[in-house]
């Protein structure tokens, strides 16, 4: 099947998935923006005077890209995973299962809508927080690349989690025990250089670290590791999870019994 046919097949589902979160945007866009602002106010005030990470960059400025990226990642994950689990539990996934849509079209639509939600929320957080302390825009291309790629990676992980989970609490466990720790330990709130050597090494095994570090590079032009290294790690991770997601969709894992 040609790429064009897959894309045109995916379009109606992509539209529906975007419409789904947009109809409840107060909960799916406004709420996470508010959460990020809370983090900024609390951590910014508590740590603002004490922590300095890069020369000429205040802690609040440093924190903003981390919060933006964290919002992108969490919302991208939430979009695909919650849409799938809701459709599975309420049973309306049957409307999709009886259609001729290919596994690739499913993948593009769920991941694509997750990217849109992640980017919309991220942009919202950026607009609101930049008002407190503009962080600078050293290289917008890195910002866009890491923002989109990070959202794609997390949207795909959300797709996998949504396929795997049979109940909301299983999904919550996935979110609380895997996604949250990996996000928080990735350098959202601090530079991993300030960590003891052991945790420094551990952080470098966390793909989330590279997403946030590369993203931050786009703002300040400096980062803990080279953005090219980060791009390679995040790109490879995305290829890996995409392969898994497509294989699960093709096999009908927990969809077609």
């Amino acid at each position, binding site marked *: 099947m040609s790429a064009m046919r897959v894309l045109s097949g995916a379009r109606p*589902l992509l539209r529906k998935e975007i419409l789904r979160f947009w*109809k409840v945007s107060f909960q799916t866009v406004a709420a996470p923006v508010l959460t990020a602002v809370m983090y900024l106010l609390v951590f910014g005030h508590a740590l603002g005077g004490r922590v300095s990470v890069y020369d000429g960059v205040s802690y609040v400025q440093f924190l903003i890209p981390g919060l933006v990226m964290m919002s992108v990642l969490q919302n991208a994950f939430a979009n695909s995973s919650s849409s799938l689990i809701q*459709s599975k539990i309420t*049973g*309306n996934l*049957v*409307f999709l299962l009886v259609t*001729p849509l*290919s596994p690739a079209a499913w993948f593009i639509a769920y991941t694509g809508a997750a990217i849109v939600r992640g980017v919309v929320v991220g942009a919202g957080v950026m607009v609101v927080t930049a008002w407190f302390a503009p962080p600078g825009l050293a290289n917008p291309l890195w910002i866009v690349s890491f923002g989109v790629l990070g959202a794609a990676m997390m949207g795909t992980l959300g797709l996998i989690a949504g396929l795997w989970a049979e109940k909301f609490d299983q999904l919550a466990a996935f979110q609380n025990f895997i996604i949250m720790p990996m996000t928080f330990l990735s350098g959202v709130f601090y530079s991993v250089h300030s960590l003891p050597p052991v945790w420094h090494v551990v952080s470098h095994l966390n793909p989330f670290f590279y997403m946030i570090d590369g993203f931050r590079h786009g703002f300040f032009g400096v980062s803990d590791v080279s953005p090219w290294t980060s791009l390679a790690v995040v790109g490879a991770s995305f290829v890996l999870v995409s392969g898994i997601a497509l294989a699960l969709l093709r096999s009908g894992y927990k969809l*077609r019994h």
Partner: protein
Amino acid sequence: MSAISFQQVEKTYGSGVHALRGVSFDVQPGEFFGLLGPNGAGKTSLISVLAGLARATRGKVTVMGHDVVDDYAQARRALGIVPQELVFDPFFSVRETLRIQSGYFGVRDNDAWIDELLASLGLADKANANMRQLSGGMKRRVLVAQALVHRPPVIVLDEPTAGVDVELRQTLWQFIARLNREGHTVLLTTHYLEEAEALCQRIAMLKQGRVVALERTSELLAGTATTMLRFKTDHALPASLVARARVTGRFAQVSARDAGDVEAVLAQLREAGVPVEDLEIGRSDLEDVFLDIMTTEGAQRQGARQ
């Protein structure tokens, strides 16, 4: 070419349940076909395999000549499934739901057909209502419309009238009968045997994952043409009649071979002092045939005919 073809379909679930044990039959284009059987007989499994919701462990299923696994896209385009469960997407209105479903099948600018569906199913004034606001019967109508957005030649209705009021049943059957007259093939599963008797030209009966009867409805009825004695009573039937009677509340039916047998039954009732009301004598209906096949001779019957 058959509209639907099941060839030696077997299905064993991961749990070890052996739901289908070699089911084979064909539904011809334009037919109104009934699939009957008690709960757990395998009807829903068979329809799930047909729709691609489940995969057959063995065997082959085609829709309009397209294999449901190897050529799933074409097979699903030819198929409109009305699912048994009353499911809906709470995010959307009726019209949005139908537009989205059209999109999945690659049908664009479908509003003319959507309007016709809405009108035919009595949904026109609900087009912009959110799915959550609809009553159960209205949701059921939307399910039917959703299955038909892409104008499939083959329509599958899985228990469409379960828990549905009389008015909707009438609307639904008028509409489905019209589609059938226009050339659509219809496969129906139902628990309401009078519906199957009235609508279906041919019937297959499933029991424990096997086809135990497959005939024209008229022949099925003729095959066990016995006389039925129907009456109402508040009293217990005499022991001699209990075994051959079917009792539903105060409504009793007793089968009889001929006129003499009818007299014998009435005599027994009189002797036992059982007063009867609304006595009538009629032919056995599909329900009698169904019970007969399911309870007594199911396996032998199929064996004898093959």
